[in-house]
């Protein structure tokens, strides 16, 4: 079978998703299916939404399943996951499509350190599923990537000092932060070994818990492999008052960028009051994972193509 053919890719994609599903089922996670539409999505400054015109009132296509999944913590469900489509307007590039597939999982009574463990183990199982053996080295763009855990862990502050020459924790400059993240830090992380980048500035993640011993830092972690950002997770913020303030701040940023504010997600906030005191959740880009494990260079190669939302 030609390695670029759709048949080859879809077969590998199936094997990867099957392995991920098995990983969760073996560990007592339940699989959920939540709606992809919503009237009051999570306010996020840098995510643009598709709006659907409907007879009664307009709604949005969700950019992530978080809006309906996180409140399930308040239902007493301790471990759950979902594999579903997600929609983000105007995101189109080698690693971006306006419609893509997310794997998202939550654990009650856990923090972001357990997500690092989960992620390493999941990646290893996904890799074994397609190589068929214990071999965890893969070749991508002529470079060998070593997927044998443990992966490198580096803080945002260390990575910025090393690759960009400044510390975003002591110098808040959002525009420069994202510019240098893309042009200096991410290329610096594109080595043989996958990397967890953790401990983001508190302002860079409105849904993460702030570190107890350092109020400038939030407990967020991103997973990079082969130069691609594959997963993003955090210790969940579960304080509804604090979350409301941060949502207002995100809506203010939206307006400053000339975007419409979104309605406050009141059910989402209310559910926090019945949630466990700690929980962690992570989202993984399935298309990018398939790209990584099949050596594909463009996200369009790893699923059936559709240009409707471009």
């Amino acid at each position, binding site marked *: 079978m030609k390695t670029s053919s759709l048949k080859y890719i879809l077969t590998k994609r199936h094997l990867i998703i099957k392995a991920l599903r098995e990983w969760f089922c073996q560990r007592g996670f339940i699989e959920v299916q939540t709606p992809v539409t919503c009237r009051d999505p999570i306010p996020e400054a*840098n995510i643009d939404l598709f709006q659907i015109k409907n007879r009664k009132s307009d709604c949005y296509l969700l950019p992530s399943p978080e809006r309906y999944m996180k409140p399930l913590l308040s239902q007493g469900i301790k471990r759950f996951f979902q594999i579903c489509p997600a929609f983000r307007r105007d*995101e189109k590039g080698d690693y971006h499509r306006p419609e893509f597939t997310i794997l998202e999982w939550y654990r009650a009574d856990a923090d972001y350190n357990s997500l690092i463990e989960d992620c390493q183990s999941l990646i290893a199982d996904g890799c074994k599923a397609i190589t068929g053996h214990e071999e965890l080295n893969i070749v991508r763009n002529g470079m060998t990537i070593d997927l044998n855990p443990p992966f490198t862990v580096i803080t945002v502050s260390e990575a910025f000092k090393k690759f960009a020459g400044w510390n975003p924790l002591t110098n808040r400059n959002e525009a420069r932060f*994202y510019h240098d993240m*893309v042009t200096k830090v991410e290329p610096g992380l594109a080595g043989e070994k996958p990397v967890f980048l953790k401990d983001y500035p508190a302002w860079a993640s409105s849904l993460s818990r702030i570190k107890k011993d350092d109020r400038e830092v939030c407990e967020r972690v991103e997973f990079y492999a082969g130069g691609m950002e594959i997963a993003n997770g955090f210790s969940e913020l579960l304080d509804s008052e604090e979350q409301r303030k941060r949502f207002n701040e995100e809506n203010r940023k939206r307006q400053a*960028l000339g975007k419409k504010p979104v309605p406050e997600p009141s059910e989402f906030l209310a559910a926090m009051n019945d949630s466990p005191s700690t929980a962690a959740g992570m989202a993984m880009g399935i298309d990018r994972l398939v790209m990584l494990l099949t050596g594909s260079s463009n996200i369009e190669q790893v699923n059936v193509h559709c240009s409707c939302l471009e």
Partner: protein
Amino acid sequence: MYESSDLRKGLKIIIDGAPYIITDFQFSKPGKGQALYRCKLKNMITGYTMDRTYRSGDKFEPANLQESRMQFLYNDATGYHFMDTSTYDQITLTPEQIGDAKNFLKDNMEVDILFFDETPISISLPTFVELEVVKSDPGIKGDTATGATKPATLETGYTLQVPLFIEEGNVLKIDTRTGEYVERVKN
């Protein structure tokens, strides 16, 4: 106006008053962060290339570029002169703007001229042109090696390699993209 999300390879925009074409384009977006649009741009008049990174919310003026079909009249010390056959407007391009196209231009030939606002900036030739051979030595007798060629000079002064059977006075079809001989169209 274009927005950042309209940026893509091949789009023509104005930067500092000059028309640029995007020759390479990359969309980047760190998780939950601001999108960055990284472009390689080429100045359509000078050929100067540069890298620029744009953000969401940036706006761009489209470069108003139009192509007009024009007839080549003649060239002299002031440049290459062309005329719009419907309006009789005449324009002049410099030898630098004409470039290698001079090898294939003959009087009355119709070409496309690209205008930025009212200023002509470049020429595009038909893919194939027919030109007469003005000078070519006869092929050496007995030389039967396949693919053997000899030089020939065309009416424009351009010299190229042609098959041995080509003679002075023949009209040849030339590919203007490569400058190579295609076939003989008239003995």
